[in-house]
């Protein structure tokens, strides 16, 4: 009997083959008609174009795009690698800025019940706001579409990090704090050598949630601000009615999102500990 992993892999591949096969079958062009209507002649066979492209077409396109991902032929014609690069750059910039604020503020809130009570109402009001709702205000104040997109990423990734940091710090076991106290560690040493490692798994969980949300939001944000990025690319290809490119970029969004999550998952495992 093959191992569970091997059987699971076999099953995965057969699901894929089945799904692609069904997709391919359902998108075959109808049998050639005797003659095109005059209108169809005029549109150069537009009726055929409006059908969802078959997987073979998507794979052919993916092959082309991925064999030259970084070409740059003007504003509306850049390689998929460049577009994804813009999006990842925006996500990471906004995310790191959020981290720079969320970790120290989360520490403060977690360590001080007073600060927690004082800041909690604001957090509760700001947290449920859809990050895209900030976009008009950001565009007006910042006057720069790129920075506005980064701001939207900042605002959406700050909350899970902030709340998880505060929660993790507030729930560090009393015993470990007492160990720090009986060894006369100062506030900073206690924060860095006891509280931070103790709360790190909880903090990393927040950071992982944040990167996931940020990657969801960047696509929508770039559809709004335009110019560059994978969100803009999807929308642009839709305007071009290039459905194969749309499907291909959807898949790429999934792949990059998965890679970001894997990276954070790895980091999470590094700071985990068993009691």
């Amino acid at each position, binding site marked *: 009997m093959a191992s569970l992993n091997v059987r699971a892999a076999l099953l995965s591949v057969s699901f894929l083959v089945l799904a692609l096969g069904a997709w391919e079958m359902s998108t075959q062009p109808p049998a050639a008609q005797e003659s095109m209507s005059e209108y169809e002649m005029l549109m150069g066979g537009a009726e055929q174009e409006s059908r969802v492209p078959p997987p073979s077409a998507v794979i052919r396109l993916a092959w082309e795009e991925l064999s030259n991902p970084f070409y740059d032929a003007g504003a509306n014609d850049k390689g998929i690698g460049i577009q994804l690069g813009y999006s990842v750059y925006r996500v990471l910039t906004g995310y790191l800025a959020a981290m720079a604020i969320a970790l120290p503020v989360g520490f403060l809130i977690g360590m001080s019940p007073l600060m927690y009570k004082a800041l909690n109402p604001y957090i509760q009001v700001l947290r449920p706001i859809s990050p895209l709702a900030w976009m008009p205000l950001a565009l007006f104040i910042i006057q720069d579409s790129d920075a506005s997109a980064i701001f939207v990423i900042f605002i959406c990734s700050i909350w899970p990090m902030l709340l998880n940091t505060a929660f993790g710090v507030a729930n560090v076991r009393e*015993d470990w704090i*007492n*160990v720090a106290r*009986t060894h006369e560690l100062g506030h900073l040493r206690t924060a860095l050598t006891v509280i931070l*490692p103790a709360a790190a798994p909880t903090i990393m969980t927040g950071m992982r949630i944040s990167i996931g949300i940020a990657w969801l939001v960047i696509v929508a944000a770039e559809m709004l601000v335009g110019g560059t990025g994978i969100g803009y690319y999807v929308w642009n290809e839709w305007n071009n009615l290039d459905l194969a490119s749309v499907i291909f970029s959807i898949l790429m969004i999934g792949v990059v999102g998965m890679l970001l999550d894997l990276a954070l998952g790895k980091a999470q495992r590094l700071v985990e*500990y068993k*009691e």
Partner: protein
Amino acid sequence: MSKSFLEVDGLSKVYPDGQGNEFTVFEDIRFSLEKGEFVCIIGHSGCGKSTILNVLAGLDEASSGNLVMSGKEVIGPSLDRGVVFQNYSLLPWKTTLNNIVFAVRARWPSWSKEKVREHSERYLKMVGLDHALDRKPSQLSGGMRQRVSIARAFATQPELLLLDEPFGALDALTRGVIQDELVKIWEETRQTVFMITHDVDEAILLSDRIFLMSNGPNARIAESVKVDVPHPRSRATIFQNPAYHKTRDYLVDFLVNRSGAALPEDDGSPKFVEPAKGMAKPAPTPTEESAAKAVNA
């Protein structure tokens, strides 16, 4: 009047009882410890032993009274007072060795890396854990964890060592082995120790004196019992000493029959009792087995 190493004077702890009134856990606790003494405190659960120990550690505050150690008032925690908690309190993300290194470095910040490591390893060797330096606490048994915790406390060489039921969570066999280790380390270091236990045999094996606490609320330290069993002691031979049985009977009688209404002297200090006075005799000649042990040690 010459002052003792540690003077505890009129300590009390009061909590609100939740119905607007006050609830006095213990009151007017008075005692003193001499340098190099090993003192255990026994009393029924809830009488306030842990609270007293935490006040000595500086982790908790008394409602009234004061504490003076080596002529200085005790305020807040300090490396001069090491603590071993019942639940070990090791940092689970650090290895065995690094848990000790952490403490040693805090104690002597100017020491070189090599010196810190060498010192830490020496104390882990004392508790027989030099083979587990790189394991995390989660990979150690309860007994091994408590050994690490004891090594950590001894490694910082505090002036006063506080142990709160250190073996309470261990099985009887493991407890016995670590008790013997503790006896051995104490004979080597003559560290001043204040320890809570609920095990009468453990108290006799380890202590020079045993404090007996009356039941709460308003608990007091009623008696201070001298243990007239000479050092070095060992678990295997101590029961051969008649002084051991005499002391044991006295302690059990207190805990079973007298702890409810027992009171200290009129001036508040514990009544000093010597149940086995004059029975002391030198440690019995070592049996073959314990002689072999001594050679190995």
